[in-house]
């Protein structure tokens, strides 16, 4: 008997670790979920067992017990949703998918893990989730949102997440399964082995269901991709419909045409070096700890990078250009003319951020919305409150191939002493630098320096080289201030009540032009 027990012990100790013991762990001993993940099922189409339909492959369901326990009125509503799904599905309008739906869409997503927060960044419209695991209560209770509020805690090796404050506008799948604003989702994440997370979500909604119900499915680790890309749903939709018009001068050339050779530019000016602070907080690997919630002091950069004093609705700006020393952007003549033209009322519609599209680099830093920096092992991640993310790997990898173009570009980073240097290329040229329309093209190459000049302040410098638009490189400088705070959701496209006004102004102008010609 004793021998048998000893033998068993030996087997456990030496012969084979169980899968649960093989999982990677973080420095603080938690299961390490960091990586790129995706489901391998058809839950996105229908959570329940379903035969194939047009545009919808057959699939086995993920609902425990097989049936979603609707109240009678809600069962009828679900059938109506199903019948109208082509147009009634919130995703057909490119709205945020909500939780849990975002977790099992057919797009990869990436998890970043720190002791205080677990961030999930998704390709779909660059949505992200922040799961707060620091035990803090929600500071702004009661404001419902599309993606809800996520608070996590550890139960042994299982991450348990309470998701509350949902609105009633999201669905669970393409089949019209739905909920009310009384939805409460309890998620459980547990590693089955090094490459599999078992994901469960318990759904409670007393307004819609007769009892709580549960879905469960594995999430599989992507091993052969090293970054996730973007699918900007609304931008793609408006481009396809013609509501967002191609600008041949700045956009990356259309498929099938050969991009021109980008000429080299003379060097920019030499900037005075800045001293980094000596009393910085540091991460375990000795780098400055930049993590936290930030507000940029953009000095109106979102309304003009050059100084101006006008103040009708567009605030005056202090000017953030430090090179050239006179604060004037070194525009080529055509681009200066375009920049001035963009201030005309009928051009307001052309600013991509008026459509709630992503602001690009470096504009995402100085739009008047906060952002959060996370610093998990191997990465710096920036989550912008105007729902988009930037993932900056620090492993020295090369940029994406030239023909892969993105709204936020492709960023890689490295440390130079205590300064984080981020190199961004592969821009799509669709962005404006601000509301007055400072111009940038797909040839844009941005080198950002995050210089921690005080314990709670980063001095941010971005040098932009764009030979299509400018005659030489130029640099802006903006202080970024770390504060207490949490990101809130900006459902910009979902709530956008302004765009049709801007479209009216443009359409009236065009009608007038047509009449005059």
């Amino acid at each position, binding site marked *: 008997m004793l021998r048998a027990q000893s033998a068993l012990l030996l087997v456990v100790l030496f012969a084979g670790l169980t899968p649960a013991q093989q999982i990677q762990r973080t420095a603080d001993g938690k299961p390490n979920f960091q990586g790129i993940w995706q489901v391998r099922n058809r839950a996105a189409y229908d959570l329940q067992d379903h035969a194939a339909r047009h545009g919808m492959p057959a699939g086995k369901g993920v609902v425990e017990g097989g049936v979603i326990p609707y109240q009678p009125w809600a069962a009828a509503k679900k059938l109506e949703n199903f019948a109208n799904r082509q147009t009634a599905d919130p995703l057909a309008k490119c709205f945020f998918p909500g939780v849990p739906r975002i977790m099992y869409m057919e797009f990869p997503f990436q998890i970043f893990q720190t002791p205080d927060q677990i961030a999930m960044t998704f390709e779909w419209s660059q949505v992200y989730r922040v799961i707060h695991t620091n035990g803090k209560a929600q*500071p*702004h209770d*009661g*404001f419902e949102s599309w993606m809800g509020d996520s608070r996590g805690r550890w139960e042994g090796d299982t991450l348990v997440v309470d998701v509350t404050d949902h609105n009633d506008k999201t669905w669970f799948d393409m089949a019209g399964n739905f909920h009310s604003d009384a939805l409460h989702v309890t998620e459980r994440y547990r590693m089955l082995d090094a490459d599999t997370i078992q994901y469960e979500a318990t759904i409670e909604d007393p307004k819609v269901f007769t009892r709580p119900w549960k879905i469960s499915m594995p999430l599989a680790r992507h091993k052969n991709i090293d970054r996730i890309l973007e699918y900007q749903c609304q931008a793609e939709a408006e481009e396809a419909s013609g509501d967002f018009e191609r600008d041949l001068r700045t956009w990356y050339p259309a498929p099938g045409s050969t991009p021109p050779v980008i000429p080299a530019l003379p060097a920019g000016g030499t900037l005075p070096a800045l001293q980094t602070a000596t009393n910085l907080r540091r991460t375990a690997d000795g780098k400055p700890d930049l993590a936290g919630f930030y*507000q*940029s*002091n*953009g000095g109106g950069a*979102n309304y003009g990078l050059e100084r101006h004093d006008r*103040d*009708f*609705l*567009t*605030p005056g700006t202090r000017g953030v250009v430090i090179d050239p020393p006179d604060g004037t952007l070194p525009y080529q003549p055509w681009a200066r003319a375009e920049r001035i033209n963009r*201030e*005309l*009322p*009928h*051009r*307001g*519609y052309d*600013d991509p*951020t*008026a459509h*709630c599209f992503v602001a690009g680099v470096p504009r995402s830093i100085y*739009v*008047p*919305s*906060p952002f959060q920096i996370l610093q998990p092992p191997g990465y710096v991640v920036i989550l912008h*409150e*105007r729902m988009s993310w930037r993932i900056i790997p620090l492993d020295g990898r090369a940029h994406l191939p030239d023909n892969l173009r993105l709204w936020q570009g492709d960023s890689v980073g490295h440390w130079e002493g205590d300064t984080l240097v981020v190199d961004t290329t592969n821009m799509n040229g669709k962005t404006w630098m601000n*509301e*007055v329309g400072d111009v940038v093209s797909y040839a844009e190459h941005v080198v950002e320096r995050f210089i921690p000049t005080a314990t709670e302040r980063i001095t941010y410098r971005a040098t932009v080289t764009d030979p299509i638009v400018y005659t030489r490189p130029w640099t802006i400088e903006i202080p970024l201030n770390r*504060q*207490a*705070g*949490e990101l*809130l*959701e*900006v*459902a*910009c496209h979902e*709530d*956008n*009540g*302004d*765009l049709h*006004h*801007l479209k*009216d*102004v443009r359409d*009236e102008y065009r009608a007038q032009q047509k009449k005059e010609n």
Partner: protein
Amino acid sequence: MRIRNAIGILSMTVLLAGTILAHHSFTAEYDPNKKIKLTGKVTEMKWSNPHSWIYIDVETDGKTVNWALETGAANSLIRAGWKRDDLPKGTVLVVDGWQARNGSPTANVSSVTFTDGRRLFAASSNTKAKEK
């Protein structure tokens, strides 16, 4: 009472007069030559990003017109301590702003005051709004 609390917080923390930090060009949408002053009763407060909207009924010559007033981002108001029910229906407001270029009853707000002169808010400044 809640309104009063909110105003107290706002007067301490927020707000610059005259400028609204935006996600699109206001100059495209609103007319600098159409400065307006309105008095009306709140019919709805729509908390939204990138801009919140206050709807008020304004009576002119016996006719009631519902005006849509564009204000700051919901998130800035939330950070400044606002609660969803802080601006109940029927509250009388005096509003200064600029009307839309197309002449519709739509305006961008530069200041909002109660009838006794207390200031509600002009707009929100993300850089000044503080976490509660």
